[in-house]
């Protein structure tokens, strides 16, 4: 547009505005006020405000505005390369307004964020546990003890209901040397192993011999220790346990003592 025409338009517009303001004012006052209002009106004609980056993204370029305002017949006019470039800012503005494509990746990441956090947390816990197991010997031993205790509990329940052979492998250290040693001690030692785990409840329905009654008293002495006489039969049962597999030759001497101890116990108890 021609700047001279713009100035004429502005002057004409300023006169219109001032006339509107001075409609109800008497002519003498209006003549004195007119230059003051014209000076005030110059406040509306400063330089154009330079738009910031955010505001510039919202504005159409002059070329894009001209092409949008121009009718379709003027579009194929011979515009060399200048008419093609304004479409880029216009497209950029429309993309900003649409707001349909950009949020999609953000939503996906928001939905997958808890899953990723759970995976990372699980991996961290697993790595920490593995490091502790590799570094600490006690951790592994306690873990083995825990597994053994679980297996023993499960095996104890299984042995109490069907039969004794499944319970024998659990206290494998104690009854294994006793089994090949002698005939009378063989039934005593597995029952002693059972008394440590299952207690006298499992042996109560089988009061057959004196050898079976002896472990019952030892189990009772180990838990409550009612009298000093009851502690005597406990000695032979404790002797093999600390030595485990080493004092195997001494075991044959134990059955010689064992028959005496059970005979003394019932007598002492009765």
């Amino acid at each position: 547009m021609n700047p001279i025409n713009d100035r004429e338009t502005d002057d004409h517009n300023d006169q219109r505005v001032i006339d509107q303001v001075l409609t109800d004012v008497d002519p003498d006052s209006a003549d004195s006020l007119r230059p003051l209002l014209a000076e005030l009106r110059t406040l509306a004609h400063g330089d154009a405000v330079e738009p910031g980056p955010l505001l510039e993204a919202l504005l159409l370029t002059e070329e894009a505005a001209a092409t949008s305002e121009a009718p379709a017949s003027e579009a194929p006019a011979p515009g060399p390369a200048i008419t093609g470039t304004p479409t880029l800012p216009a497209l950029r503005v429309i993309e900003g307004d649409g707001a349909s494509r950009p949020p999609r990746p953000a939503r996906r990441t928001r939905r997958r964020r808890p899953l990723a956090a759970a995976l990372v947390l699980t991996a961290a816990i697993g790595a920490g546990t593995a490091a502790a197991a590799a570094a600490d010997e006690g951790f592994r031993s306690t873990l083995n003890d825990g597994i053994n205790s679980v297996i023993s509990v499960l095996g104890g329940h299984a042995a109490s209901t069907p039969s004794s052979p499944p319970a024998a492998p659990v206290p494998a250290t104690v009854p294994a040397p006793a089994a090949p040693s002698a005939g009378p001690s063989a039934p005593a030692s597995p029952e002693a192993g059972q008394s440590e785990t299952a207690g006298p409840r499992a042996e109560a329905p089988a009061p057959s011999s004196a050898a079976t009654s002896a472990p019952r008293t030892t189990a009772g002495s180990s838990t409550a220790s009612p009298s000093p006489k009851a502690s005597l039969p406990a000695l032979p049962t404790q002797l093999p346990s600390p030595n485990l597999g080493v004092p195997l030759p001494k075991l044959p001497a134990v059955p010689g003592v064992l028959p005496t101890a059970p005979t003394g116990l019932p007598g002492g108890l009765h």
Partner: protein
Amino acid sequence: MDPGDHAELFTAAFRTLSPSVRGYLRARGVEDSEAVTQDVFLSLYSRIGSLKGGLEGAKALVFTIAHSRAVDHHRRRERTPALVPHDPELDSRTTPATTEDLALGGAGALSLLNSLTDDHREVLLLRVVADLSIEQTAEIMSRTAGAVKQLQRRALEALRSHAVITELSPS
């Protein structure tokens, strides 16, 4: 109105009204008038979907937002500590004068406006600088049209009397 029309209207409103909005804010004493002008037009963009009346409606809405920003500015400035006034005699810096300074420097229109009360200054700025009608000015100032007419008449009398006093006073 489709988004393309919104963009065209917003661009036309910014190109047409931004100088007068900046002049209005500057006359209201807003310090960073250019930044507040951009803020005003960003607020206009968020409301342009519900705008009616084309460019004339946009003008009324823009100056409504600008009026609110000026009121907020003065309220905020009342709560903040008073600034030290600038003394040009002691300032050795030199900057080029703006077109508004050159235009208003001789007559002192801004100084005349500053001598008026807030309501008188506001009604003259909205009527002369913003080119709003009596009804639009009344809506922005939350007054009736008759009250705005009366206020404008008193503002013009005050402006003329201050101009006479300024001319008679020795420079």
